[in-house]
């Protein structure tokens, strides 16, 4: 069974990290804006070194499909906004129940893409450093739209379709650069008040997947119950993988939902709780994998953290990833024994 990660990693160890220090130093010498951060060659050099460090750390922990290791100076919601520079990015909002904050967009016009986002160049750099497969993660267009301050022409089906086109163009660029896998983060659609927006997510995924037909497009849904949306998701044309959360309160309902699983979509099984510092035992992880493999063939299943390990202290994030990898690899071994 392959082991994959899910988005960005924590970096600070004992209060320190060269990127944290470099950002502080940069803030003291310029008027800090996202664009200025992007233009700053010193910062970008430290970001590139951080990528190398995080790629090595993931490999050392035993992961088989890696995140690119890109750590933005602000947050990921800025990344795609850079592809449409006439958009305003406003105050930070709390994202789900994670105690982390992302800057929301002001969508007051139909957005227009003006070049690729930094996610693509980060992918190219990572791919130049390793031969291990990479899975860049993008917050999806629905998440950005759901959290956006939408006004006038920005609050229309045309605006949403234009957003989706921006994502599709970036995913096409990732595919052209060699990405075999891309993860789209749309967890918010599992929240009660957003579930009715499933058709928007389906529209986005179909369009994005069609822009990169040879790339496995994984939609990741953390911190929620899939419930009656499982079959509609599996029926989205082009969907390559679906990430679900099998930890904490979501474990039992999502295991139950798997009885309906069908087709050959990959299941990215979030079995290590990315929001708890307690490192699971191999026995715990095997128990969950057993329950999953009753309905999803092990060869169509990847073991993963339930969401980004960003929410944990760095030492805990990598301990958890290492335990996950050894459990998934030994589960593999067990299943293939005669």
């Amino acid at each position: 069974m392959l082991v994959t990660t899910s988005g960005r990693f924590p970096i600070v160890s004992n209060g320190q990290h060269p990127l944290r220090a470099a950002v502080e130093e940069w803030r003291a010498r310029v008027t800090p804006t996202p664009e200025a951060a992007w233009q700053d060659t010193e910062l970008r050099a430290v970001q590139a070194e951080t990528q190398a460090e995080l790629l090595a750390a993931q490999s050392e922990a035993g992961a088989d499909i890696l995140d690119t290791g890109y750590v933005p100076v602000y947050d990921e919601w800025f990344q795609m906004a850079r592809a449409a520079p006439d958009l305003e990015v406003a105050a930070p909002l709390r994202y789900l129940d994670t105690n982390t904050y992302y800057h929301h967009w002001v969508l007051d016009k139909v957005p227009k893409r003006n070049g690729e986002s930094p996610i693509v160049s980060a992918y190219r750099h990572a791919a130049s450093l390793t031969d291990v497969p990479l899975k860049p993660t993008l917050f999806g267009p629905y998440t950005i739209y759901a959290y956006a301050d939408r006004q006038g022409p920005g609050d229309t089906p045309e605006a949403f379709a234009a957003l989706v086109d921006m994502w599709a163009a970036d995913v096409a660029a990732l595919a052209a650069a060699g990405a075999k896998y891309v993860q789209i983060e749309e967890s918010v659609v599992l929240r009660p008040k957003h579930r009715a927006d499933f058709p928007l997510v389906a529209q986005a995924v179909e369009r994005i997947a069609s822009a990169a037909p040879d790339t496995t497009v994984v939609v990741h849904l953390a911190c929620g119950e899939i419930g009656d949306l499982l079959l509609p998701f599996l029926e989205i044309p082009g969907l390559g993988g679906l990430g679900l959360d099998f930890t904490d309160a979501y474990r039992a309902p999502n295991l139950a939902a798997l009885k309906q699983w069908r087709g050959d979509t990959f299941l990215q099984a979030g079995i290590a709780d990315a929001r708890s510092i307690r490192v699971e035992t191999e026995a715990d992880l095997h128990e969950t994998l057993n329950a999953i493999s009753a309905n999803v063939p092990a060869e169509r299943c990847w073991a993963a953290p339930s969401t980004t390990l960003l929410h944990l202290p760095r030492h805990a994030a990598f301990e958890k990833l290492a335990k996950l990898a050894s459990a998934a690899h030994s589960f593999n071994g067990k299943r293939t024994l005669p």
Partner: protein
Amino acid sequence: MSQLPILPISSIGSLPKPPDLFQAEMAPLEQQDRAWMRQAQETAVADWLATQESLGIDVLVDGEQYRRSITTYFLEGWGCADIDPDAVWVLDNMYGQRAVIKRPATESRTLLLDWYQFAAARAQSELKVTVTGPYTLRDWVFDLHYPDRAAAVLAMAEYVREEVQALVAAGVRYLQIDEPAFVTRYDQPAELDVAIEGMRRICAGLPEHVTIFTHMCYGAFHEVYPKMLELPAQVFCLELAHVAPEMLDILRQHPFPADRGMGYGVVDAQDPRVESVEEIEARIRLALEYFAPEQLWINPDCGLQVVPRESAVAKLENLVAATHRVRQSLA
């Protein structure tokens, strides 16, 4: 409450710290000069009490000048947690140190008692003591000790109850239990029930002269209303300066009960921009469309600790002026 004017004004909790104190408390506890810290904290508390009184705030807070954060202050102080050295990303280039609960409390649960006595000896006006609620004390940290979230919340509820008992015995009449985490897992009814049970255990048997406030912020409050009314608080202090239309809709469907108070947030606690008196007055008048004057308290959205001191003072000044205008028109 009888001696308070109509639309009583209160602060929420934290207020900006002097920069040297803020810097000093970032160091690990064992490296801090405790005598210097205590002196600086006392000076800062006394200063904020005097400032709030001079501005015309009716019910004062001590500004939490001696708390590193609303969770670590209690968990470290009670001896049940250590601070993880690997700070966790919060936003932009900001990282926060998180407590990890590792054992039951080893120290006494009377951290707030001498700070209350210190403030009571200096303030002429009424005081409100703020304490972090047990649900937030669990939700915002990591836990390596308790078997599940509910067990941790109920253990923290017992420690908060002991703090509260000591405060009430010392004469506290206004007590605020902060539960900003209450709104975060609104899709999980069992989580809300645990938070409610935690607060019930703290408030059970408290004398009637004690007014219990609760405070929540960052919230999709409409997701937890009217369920939040199951919390045993008399006054709900909410972040409402930019009230969501969904919240007003649900207040029309389920009017707020006449026997509870609403601490209506009328200034933004994150944005340093100082709202004008007119802007704040309009927010109070909007509040009066949904709440009777006798059930309304006026306060900032949240503790003002993240805005610069001048901005916090100017916001409070305009909040008081706007409240006075509305009071006059109600008279």
